[in-house]
């Protein structure tokens, strides 16, 4: 296949990937978009086979390995529960990162195959691109592995910090740049391996100080990195499909990180430097006094809801942990039978990844036009009778609007307290991840329901 023809076909597959993302602008067009993505991938892979034109024993092995990987991937895709989506995405990011590292190594060891020169005499530009691809890929890999372990609960979600952490990170980052520079002037394979090792290390060090609830930012950031790694390799291989895709994914991840940071009113650097809540937490807990709370049971909650004409549900990470989304939907069905208007309010950082709550509600067959974003629904709380907070905490804390001393001051929150009454499902009075007390617990119109989210929801349904 001529080089020009394959370049055009790669371009087409790049365009199909753009359309795949474009489709996600609405749920109706999204499935078609996904199909475009699949077609784009099939084109890219077929063109590669045809332009390499090597259909010998190696080709059979390629197909075998493709089938092995594909089989594993398909199996995971069908068996993974929707609540585990953040872990899955983190895991997938790590694979993209590692694949980028492997391709870079292969290109470094055997540059002739990629038309990049000969070992020890690789074109300068290619070497720089290769190093960037390998370094970013390695960072993506080790960072995603840590994110995965934290999300799975294998590793504690608490931030791990130590003295001089930022200094060490800064030194390593500078050393990566220096190493790349020397690698380019000496072409030494030893330096190449050191570069990769150091990049693995920095990925690990960057993610360990970031706490569990900052994971939405981390996952989006790693998403972005995996894109830049792919773009770096794309430049090395002079492949338009890879360059376009890398740029798309890179900017997509960057935008998502930005949205998540804005949802927490924190700067990107504040999140990345990590250790949130460390110092502020102690000062807040000192002046914590015992305040009275009203607590109730499923019967009380059912009574309040039965007499309401509109209910707004505020789900959070706790709903995902308790797997309460199906029980919640059953409760809502019963409410609707009693002619009560129900809608859902989603905070941008609810859950552990962007859009986490929406997927869980969709899984429980909640129609997506009953689910609203913060800005769309925030004014409705004042007119609603009952707010049902299930598994959310910090995103409802009125302190963010009233107390400039609070670490979450300025964060956009759902105006839950404006409802006539608030039902707050929670296991205990313990503060949320930010380590601050939620004023909402002590409000006159709040009824605390101390129980497991799923069990409480089921009990309420029985009492309705």
């Amino acid at each position, binding site marked *: 296949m001529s080089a020009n023809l394959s370049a055009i076909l790669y371009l087409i597959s790049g365009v199909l990937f753009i359309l795949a993302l474009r489709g996600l602008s609405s749920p109706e067009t999204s499935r078609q978009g*996904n199909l475009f993505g699949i077609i784009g991938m099939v084109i890219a892979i077929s063109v590669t086979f045809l332009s390499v034109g090597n259909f010998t024993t190696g080709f059979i092995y390629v197909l075998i390995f493709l089938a092995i990987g594909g089989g594993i991937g398909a199996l995971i895709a069908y068996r993974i529960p929707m609540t585990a989506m953040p872990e*899955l995405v983190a895991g997938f990011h790590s694979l993209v990162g590692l694949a980028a590292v492997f391709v870079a190594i292969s290109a470094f060891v055997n540059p002739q195959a990629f038309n990049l020169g000969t070992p020890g005499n690789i074109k300068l530009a290619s070497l720089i691109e290769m190093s960037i691809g390998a370094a970013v890929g390695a960072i993506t890999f080790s960072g995603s592995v840590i994110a995965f372990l934290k999300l799975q609960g294998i590793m504690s979600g608490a931030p791990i910090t130590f003295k001089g952490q930022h200094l060490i990170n800064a030194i390593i980052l500078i050393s990566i740049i220096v190493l790349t520079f020397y690698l380019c002037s000496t072409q030494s394979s030893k330096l190449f391996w050191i570069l990769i090792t150091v990049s693995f290390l920095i990925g690990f060090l960057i993610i360990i100080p970031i706490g569990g609830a900052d994971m939405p930012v981390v996952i989006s950031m790693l998403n972005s990195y995996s894109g830049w790694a792919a773009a770096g390799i794309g430049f090395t291989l002079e492949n338009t499909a890879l360059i376009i895709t890398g740029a798309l994914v890179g900017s997509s991840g960057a935008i998502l990180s930005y949205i998540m940071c804005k949802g927490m009113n924190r700067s990107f650097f504040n999140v990345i430097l990590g250790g949130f809540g460390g110092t502020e937490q102690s000062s807040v807990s000192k002046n914590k006094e015992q305040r009275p709370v009203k607590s109730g049971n499923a019967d009380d909650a059912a009574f309040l809801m039965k007499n309401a004409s509109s209910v707004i549900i505020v789900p959070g990470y706790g709903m995902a942990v308790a797997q309460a989304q199906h029980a919640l939907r059953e409760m809502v069905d019963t409410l609707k039978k009693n002619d009560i208007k129900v809608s859902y309010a989603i905070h941008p950082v609810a859950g552990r990844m962007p859009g986490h709550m929406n997927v869980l509600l969709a899984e429980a067959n909640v129609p997506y036009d009953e689910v609203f974003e913060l800005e769309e629904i925030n004014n409705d709380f004042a007119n609603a009778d009952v707010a049902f907070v299930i598994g959310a905490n910090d995103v409802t804390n009125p302190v963010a609007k009233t107390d400039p001393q609070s670490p979450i001051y300025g964060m956009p929150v759902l105006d839950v307290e404006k409802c006539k009454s608030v039902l707050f499902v929670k296991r205990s009075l313990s503060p949320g991840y930010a380590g601050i007390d939620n004023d909402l617990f002590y409000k006159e119109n709040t009824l605390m329901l101390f129980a497991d989210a799923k069990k409480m929801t089921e009990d309420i349904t029985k009492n309705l």
Partner: protein
Amino acid sequence: MEIDPFIFRLSIFILSIFIGYYVVWSVTPSLHTPLMSVTNAISSVIIVGAIIAALSSNGDLVFSTSTIYGFLAIILAAINIFGGFLVTQRMLAMYKKKKKDK
């Protein structure tokens, strides 16, 4: 003077960043999780490099240092491609509109 082909690739790259920027801002927030899984799947187009690497052997030798890395990368990328697209499909199939007949 001739323009280095690198500049053309750079142009494609920069323009694609802008396309990505505008396209992703128009993605509805409720689909942000599928967005992440589908970007995951498409960034695995890196498999193109893996295939070239795996088929780079000259002569009868199928497995050499560089091809082994290629084969490993193929497995990883293939997990992502199939896993990413299928899980996205599975998620998107769940997004339903309210039935009108209520």
